[in-house]
Every structure is written in C-alpha cells, then in structure tokens.
C-alpha cells in the first residue's frame, strides 16, 4: 500500500489534527474545499516516493467511523471553545488565535512532540491542518476591511505557530482565502512567514473560464515559494506553469503549455 502523504489525514470539515498515520485513509474531502481557496502549506515534509506517479484515493468514500474513533486526533472548533475555561496567557492576538495557539501548544506538550515527555510508542509527527485562517470564522477582520484593528494578529499568530513547529516534531498545512484579503501587504508578510506557499487560482468567474484553450482545466497552480532550509540552495523546478483539473475521482496537475 502507499504510504500516506501529509495531506491525506485531513478529512474533517473542522480543523483537526491526525496523529494516526499507519493506514492510508480512503476519503479526502479536504481537497474539494481547498480548490476554492489559495493554499498556504507550511513545513511540509518532502514528497513521498511511490512506484506509481501520484497518489490514489477515493474521495467519494467516507472514512469508517471505527477508524476515526481508533485514531488519535484532536479537533478544534472555535465556537465551542470560545467560552471554555481553557487557561490562556495574556497575549495581544485576537482571542480565537490565542486559544488556537494554546490548544496546539497543549497537545505538543501533553503528547511529547517537543521531547518533554518521552514517547513510549514509535516516534510520530504531529500533523496540523488549519482551514480558512484569516477569515471572520476565526474572529479576524482582515477579510472584511482593508485596515482593520487586528491587522497584526494573523502575522503574530503565524510567527508563534512557526516557533511551535520549529521546536517540535510537527508540520502544519493551512488554507487561507487570500482572495478575500484586500491588504496586499498582509499577503506579502504571510508569505514571508511561511515555508512553502502554493496558490490555487480557479478559472470560475474569470475570462479564462470560457477560453477554449483552457476547457480541460479548472484552474492554475502557482508555486509561490519554496524554502531553503538548512541549505543555501533550494530545489527549484524550472516548470512554472501548472494547471489543474478536478473531477469526481481525479485531481491532476499538468504542465500548462498554453500560458
């Protein structure tokens, strides 16, 4: 069977973390949601090699309930946590981001991903998925106003999150609706604070939707940034034009010869 790459463990509608990585999960509804937004993954582990190119999952099947219950995962749904008594240190972020950071930090500490409690079982990596960061669902107003009162909350959150990731065995993938953020400076700062940045640009609503040259594709993929970690050089590909198509059972990325 194929080893499970990073993305496949996320299949919940709400933000969650999945630590159980032995089996290849059979459903992956996250990809459908990701298609509509720009995607900003962070600290992504390198691509997993496989005998066949690509990864094969059936997104139409739901994950068996027993598998979910047997897995060690933690969900964070802000409306449930907002009135909780979770101990939170005073911080200058919005309450939503503060609680989220505390939640992540608790798991890292409690489950020993920072090396504080020796893990008895086989060493594992904490995978974190955060959806719609920056949206009003997180109590942030950068999608609503160009110069809101919380303009530094998101970037501060990302910086502290980066610190948590760098000091523990964890990796995080984030989606962000950057098409809703009017302040270009924030997007530039978010990019600088991330390791890998991938943009998905949908053709829906753009002139390319009716362009016959693009009829086979649903949008473009932009690799905006790749990191130089522990190195002077990075593995930059010379293929820059990538397009994708999303069908019921297939998400493919192809070199776009048109643009």
């Amino acid at each position: 069977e194929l080893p499970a790459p990073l993305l496949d463990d996320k299949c919940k509608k709400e933000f969650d973390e999945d630590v159980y990585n032995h089996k290849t999960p059979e459903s992956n509804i996250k990809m459908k949601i990701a298609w509509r937004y720009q995607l900003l993954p962070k600290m992504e582990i390198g691509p997993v090699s496989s005998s066949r190119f690509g990864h094969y999952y059936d997104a139409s099947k739901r994950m068996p309930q027993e598998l979910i219950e047997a897995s060690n995962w933690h969900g964070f749904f802000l409306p449930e946590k907002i009135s909780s008594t979770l101990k939170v240190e005073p911080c200058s972020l919005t309450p939503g981001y503060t609680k989220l950071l505390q939640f992540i930090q608790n798991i890292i500490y409690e489950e020993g991903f920072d090396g504080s409690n020796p893990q008895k079982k086989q060493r594992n990596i904490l995978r974190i998925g955060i959806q719609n960061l920056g949206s009003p669902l997180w109590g942030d107003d950068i999608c609503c106003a160009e110069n809101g009162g919380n303009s530094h909350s998101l970037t501060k959150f990302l910086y502290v999150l980066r610190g948590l990731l760098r000091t523990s065995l964890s990796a995080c993938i984030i989606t962000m609706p950057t098409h809703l953020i009017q302040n270009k400076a924030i997007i530039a700062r978010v990019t600088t604070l991330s390791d890998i940045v991938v943009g998905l640009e949908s053709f829906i609503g753009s002139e390319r939707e009716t362009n016959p040259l693009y009829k086979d594709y649903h949008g473009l993929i932009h690799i905006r940034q790749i990191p130089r970690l522990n190195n002077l050089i990075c593995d930059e590909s010379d293929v820059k034009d990538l397009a994708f198509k999303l069908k019921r059972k297939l998400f493919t990325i192809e070199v776009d010869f048109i643009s």
Partner: protein
Amino acid sequence: MFVELNNLLNTTPDRAEQGKLTLLCDAKTDGSFLVHHFLSFYLKANCKVCFVALIQSFSHYSIVGQKLGVSLTMARERGQLVFLEGLKSAVDVVFQAQKEPHPLQFLREANAGNLKPLFEFVREALKPIDSGEARWTYPVLLVDDLSVLLSLGMGAVAVLDFIHYCRATVCWELKGNVVVLVHDSGDAEDEENDILLNGLSHQSHLILRAEGLATGFCRDVHGQLRILWRRPSQPTVHRDQSFTYQYKIQDKSVSFFAKGMSPAVL
C-alpha cells in the same frame, strides 16, 4: 563566507572596516545567502557577534555555517557568539509569564511602543568585558530580519529607533559593525516596510541588494546583486558608487559574474 563576494567588496576578515552599517536587502528573491556570508565572515574575523535571528532556527544557520567553515555551536560555547533564537524565544514569551524583562516581551503587549528590551539585550551581549585582555577584535550585530518585527506589530519608527540606538552603541561607541536584512516588498504596498527600508538606506554605508531576474527563473543565474557604496572610504570620491553582478548559488559557495558573462552562456 564567500571569497568571491569578499573580492567584490574589496575586504577580508583581517582588514574589514569598522564602525559601519551594512544593509542587506532582497527583492523578489531570497537574500539569506548574504546573512550566512556575513555571519561566517565576522566569526572568522574573530569578532564578538550578537545574532538576532528572528526567522530561522539555530540549527538552520549552524548547518549552513558548517558548509562555510564555521561552527556556531563552538562559537557560542566559547562566548564569541551570542545567539537570540527569535522563534524559540517567542514560544517561551507567549506561553509563560517571564520573571525578568525579555528581549521579545513586546509579543505579550497589546500596544508595544518600542524595542528597548531588545536593545538592552544587544548592548549587554556586546559590552566589553573588563578582564583587561581583549579577546575579540570588535563587536558585530547581525539581524535576520528586521521586516519580521513589523509583522509582529512594531511600527517602522520603533524599528528605526532600535537601529539608531544600536548604531550609537555598536558602531560609534564600540567601533563595531551592524548588518541587517530588510525585505523589499515591491508592489505589495507595505508602507511600513517601505519607510523602514528607505530610512535605513539613508543611514547605511554599504547596501547589498539581491534581486530576482526580471526575465524570471534561470537555472544558471539565480539573481543579480547590486552593491552600493554610500560613503566610500576615499574622501576624494564624492558620489555613491554602484556595481551590479549576477550570481549563482551553489552548495557551499556563491559565484559572481558580470551580466551576460555566466559560464553557462559563454
């Protein structure tokens, strides 16, 4: 350090100038190779180095440092290098109340006005020790990078003030050097960053600007480096001098060449 860059800058660790502010800048590319260069350069020059590393972990700089012939671990152990690991410190500051003032304590405050605790940290790190014998040549402050401070809620003026105080202490009082990296955000309309970049450009003796190629990605040329001397050492030369080279980054070095003279092209 990159020997070719030393040649372009007409300097070596033995006879580098003192009392200078060097500004590193990157536009549409990653200029971190310049940070690695100066870190290893000044360690080899036997300077006391205070490195405010805000964007990457210690191990990242350490691994690259080894490729460039310096051991950050040993430099830290023998007291030559004072390393502030911003990311790790941020986690400490945000999740635990600190008993003593912390250089990054502004992260806990809703409206942090200034970077005084950070300056105090730098001053403490580089102050000369009264043991009578000078162990290190001169002090150096290196910051990677200043733009991050804007993302953390500090205003451009507060960051400029911080650098002003650092220059007064490190460059004038202690006859050392300051090297900082600031990103050029280009058309991202980042006003605060533009103010910071412009303000520092006017104060710098030397500006090294790494730029992505206008024509896009190229396998053999990774970018171009603009070297701008703002106050050249020769008093007879009144105008600022500027040179542009293209460069290619390799595993352990960076090679520079005049435009259009890449070995791959010739």
